[in-house]
């Protein structure tokens, strides 16, 4: 068995990430290597990177596990006679040393005053050789020694530990190595006598106005909050609901001494390993690692991934996804995956996500498609893994029986057979000599082709510019297909094709005109049941092809459309313009499809509005420029959703590169929550 390396966390190129190299010493070939691998998994993947801060920022790190084969096992050991003074190494004498031929030559002693271990004569060179040979770059080095006892020695980016340590110790130590955080415990009864410490989590300043973590201290929290040796809450009774690790104040003791210096919380990870980082340390870690996570809020998808009726959000960044769960008014981390999920879907920047309940379990699943980052096309189905995350339950590589995936396949989520499981329509008008449309039926755990149309559907000649929409216009519980083509023919066409569960039939085709609507190439369509009769209707907007903008409400009688209302120029309360953008919604939760409307181009400032349907007509209202603290802008993107869980689709996720907001539309447009750069709910204060 030869030395080797395995990258067990692959987030990106080494120069854009913090790289952790893991080396082992005293592990021979065979079972020892399994012991070593298991310890790496336990300490790092399941431990440090399986919890709180490191879990959500795993994408900032690469981990390289180097398997070094030692000729002998376990690691060398040394016994000291400490002469009754275990805190003073200077009078210690060596009782015995058992040297073994190990890869790095470390010697474990179990003596605290000797850093528990020490290097052998050539250890430094061997470590450097191993790093140079096996890892492209490194920032932190973890060396695991084959000795069952507790201990560990850190500093200078190195952590050297035996098998007896647990992950919480490592998470504390990484706080030093990656965040530059100070210890917050009080080992000595002494008082601090120096100046203001440079670390973010210690101070000698008790002035609220200039306190460096003052933005996290609630006005009602007394300062100092705790005085006396290594104090807890001493300034009066501890408030109800006070959190020792998340409520910030000013507590005496820290930096290993008990007096004369303050820490932010009673008990952070930098004091006693097990609690999560306090808001001050967490924010420092997040800020420090922000250039390495490379996270943005650009690609966000709403879905109820745990079936509690509230929409959550899936955020995709490069080769990672994060899922944040809604509790009705805020989001909390629920799932983080870097590079792949179990079952094996490997995330890539061009992954396309389609959210829907594909297995009818009341929770949303995710179909993910990638046609450009790999040598072939892939389609995967990701479902609940039983613990709040996702795993892959089906994957098609390049093709499925009856459908050959191609670069420009376009998917639409619809339950076309009415079995309560969302299915897929897939269309490709670009990559073949004729267009194709496939109906991919969900079995709950996979997909199978129900029908394929080559070149033509009933009474419809498919063309590359066909645009598709889904909605059950005949109210039979099966979602139907709407298709529009305004550019490939001499006149525009709109087809309504009803689904019988496995095939489509043309219910009605409109050539050039719909009732009271002249179709034009730039018509925009939004299929939704605006009169609440169980049959999907059609909103159609055109801001480009006429002198004024038009919005039509065409209701379905089950087989064809009639104009319920046409707005020429204005919807009451909203002056329509060329660049109006619309999203379907159900803002008042009455089962009648409404619209969100946004325009950032045609006015002096940005307008976000709602158009509510009473079944026959619309009434609009809007906010200009700001929604609470959200400054509307050209870069904003909107995802209609129901994060409140009150029914309908009356909310919006609003997001751009750096900001993420939760907007409620009822009773009026208001901002419920705002996040900058990362999603975290501070008990008081915020990170900007």
């Amino acid at each position, binding site marked *: 068995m030869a030395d080797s390396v395995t990258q067990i966390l692959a987030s990106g*190129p*080494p*120069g*854009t990430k913090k790289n952790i190299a893991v080396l082992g010493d005293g592990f021979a070939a065979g079972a020892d290597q399994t012991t070593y691998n298991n310890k790496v998994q336990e300490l790092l993947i399941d431990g440090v990177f399986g919890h709180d801060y490191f879990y959500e920022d795993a994408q900032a790190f690469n981990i390289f596990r180097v398997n070094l084969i030692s000729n002998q096992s376990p690691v060398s050991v040394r016994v000291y006679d400490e002469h009754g003074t*275990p*805190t003073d190494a200077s009078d210690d004498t060596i009782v015995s040393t058992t040297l073994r031929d190990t890869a790095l030559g470390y010697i474990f002693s179990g003596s*605290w005053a000797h*850093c528990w271990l020490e290097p052998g004569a050539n250890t430094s060179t061997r470590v*450097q050789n191993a790093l*140079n040979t096996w890892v492209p*770059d*490194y920032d932190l080095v973890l060396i695991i020694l084959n000795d069952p006892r*507790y*201990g*560990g*020695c850190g*500093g*200078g*980016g190195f952590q050297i530990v035996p098998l007896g340590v647990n992950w919480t110790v490592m998470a504390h*130590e990484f706080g030093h190595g990656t965040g*530059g955080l100070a210890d917050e415990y*009080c*080992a000595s009864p002494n008082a601090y006598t120096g100046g*203001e410490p440079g*670390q973010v989590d210690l101070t000698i300043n008790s002035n609220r106005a200039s306190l460096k973590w003052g933005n996290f201290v609630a006005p009602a929290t007394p300062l100092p909050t705790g005085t006396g040796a290594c104090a807890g809450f001493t300034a009066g009774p501890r408030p109800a609901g006070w959190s020792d690790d998340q409520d910030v104040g000013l507590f005496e003791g820290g930096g*290993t001494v008990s007096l004369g210096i303050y820490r932010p919380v009673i008990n952070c990870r930098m004091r006693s390993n097990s609690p999560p980082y306090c808001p001050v340390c967490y924010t*420092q870690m997040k*800020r420090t690692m922000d*250039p390495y996570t490379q996270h943005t809020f650009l690609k966000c998808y709403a879905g109820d991934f745990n079936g509690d009726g509230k929409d959550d959000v899936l955020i995709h960044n490069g080769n990672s996804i994060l899922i944040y769960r809604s509790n009705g008014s805020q989001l909390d981390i629920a799932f983080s995956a870097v590079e792949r999920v179990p*079952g*094996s879907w490997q995330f890539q920047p061009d992954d396309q996500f389609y959210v829907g309940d594909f297995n009818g379990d009341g929770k949303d699943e995710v179909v993910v498609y990638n046609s450009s980052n*790999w040598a072939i096309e*892939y389609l995967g189905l990701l479902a609940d893994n039983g613990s709040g995350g996702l795993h892959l339950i089906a994957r098609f*590589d390049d093709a499925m*029986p*009856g459908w050959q995936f191609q670069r420009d396949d376009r998917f639409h989520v619809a339950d076309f057979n009415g079995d309560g499981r969302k299915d897929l329509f897939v269309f490709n008008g670009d990559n073949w000599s004729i267009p194709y449309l496939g109906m991919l039926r969900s079995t709950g755990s*996979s997909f*199978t082709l129900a029908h394929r149309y080559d070149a033509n559907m009933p*009474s419809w*000649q498919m063309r590359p510019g066909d645009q598709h929409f889904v909605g059950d216009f005949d109210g039979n519980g099966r979602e139907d297909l709407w298709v529009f083509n305004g550019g*490939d*023919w*001499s*006149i525009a*066409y709109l087809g309504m094709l009803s689904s019988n569960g496995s095939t489509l039939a043309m219910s009605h085709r409109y*050539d050039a*005109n719909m009732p009271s609507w002249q179709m034009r190439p730039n018509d925009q369509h939004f299929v939704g049941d605006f009169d609440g009769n169980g049959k999907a209707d059609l909103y159609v907007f055109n801001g*480009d092809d006429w*002198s*004024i903008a038009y919005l039509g409400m065409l209701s379905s009688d089950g087989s064809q459309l009639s104009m319920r209302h046409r707005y*020429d120029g*204005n919807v009451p309360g*909203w*002056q*329509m313009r*060329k660049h109006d953008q619309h999203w379907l919604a159900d803002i008042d939760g009455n089962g009648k499809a409404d619209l969100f409307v946004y325009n950032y181009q*045609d*006015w*002096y400032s940005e307008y976000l509005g709602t158009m509510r349907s009473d079944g026959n007509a619309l009434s609009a209202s*809007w906010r200009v420029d700001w929604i609470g603290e959200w400054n509307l802008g050209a870069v904003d993107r909107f995802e209609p959703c129901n994060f409140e869980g009150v029914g309908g689709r009356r909310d919006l996720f609003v997001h751009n590169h750096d900001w993420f907001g939760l907007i409620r539309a009822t009773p009026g447009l208001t901002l419920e929550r705002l996040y900058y750069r990362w999603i975290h709910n501070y008990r008081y204060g915020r990170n900007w």
Partner: protein
Amino acid sequence: MIEKPQIEMSSEETAEPIRDNPRKPEMTDRQPRPRRISGKVHLMEDQPAKPKSGANRMPAVPKKRATERQRGERPEQRELEQRKPQRTERLGYVRLRVHVQGGEMSVLDIASVEGPLVAHEALHGDYAYEVIVSGKRVASGSIPDAGVMRSFPHPKPAKGQEGHHFTPATSFDFLVRIPKSLVSESKLRRVQIPVYRIKEGPLPQTEGPEPLAERFERQLREVGRLHGVDIDKLPKSSQARARNALR
């Protein structure tokens, strides 16, 4: 007539429609005249015929389309075959391992690493460095946790054993990373790498050529400086690798 741009939306029900495209007509109930595409009128057939066979078609749908039941881990997804980048296109950086002993700094080795680099980071902890080439900062970073050996806290400490046991390190190494496009062997001879104690931190990530010492004059104190790197003065075992890295 050119319409005067309106700057604020009106909520009045009787507000005049905005004419964004005054040269275009208003919608009517008339049947539109078909437009010609390449001189011809193209209309969709009511009952389109089956397509004739031809090239670049999807394979026929198999008669039997059993649902595939999938279990377990799938094989690795197939990597794209990357075009080998030209030398001028190649991203990369060099990594210098700098040794500090008794206040003296020296370079122990220089390695080349492929790929892009985050060349500047937030500065935190006790020390930071920057790399200055021709008066311009080209890289900067933190040196966290340097100069100390820290024994992990004892799980059942005797009196006096609480917390870490700190031992000053007699020497330590830190890593300096510089985009490859900005250094060469000759430039390296003139490079300046000052090391600062962070007096007040943390300091935010900053880009741009202004040296840290000018930008954060109050917060940083210079404690050492490496004046140029001469590959001939590297340990013999590192020289060939260093030259290779700078090629």
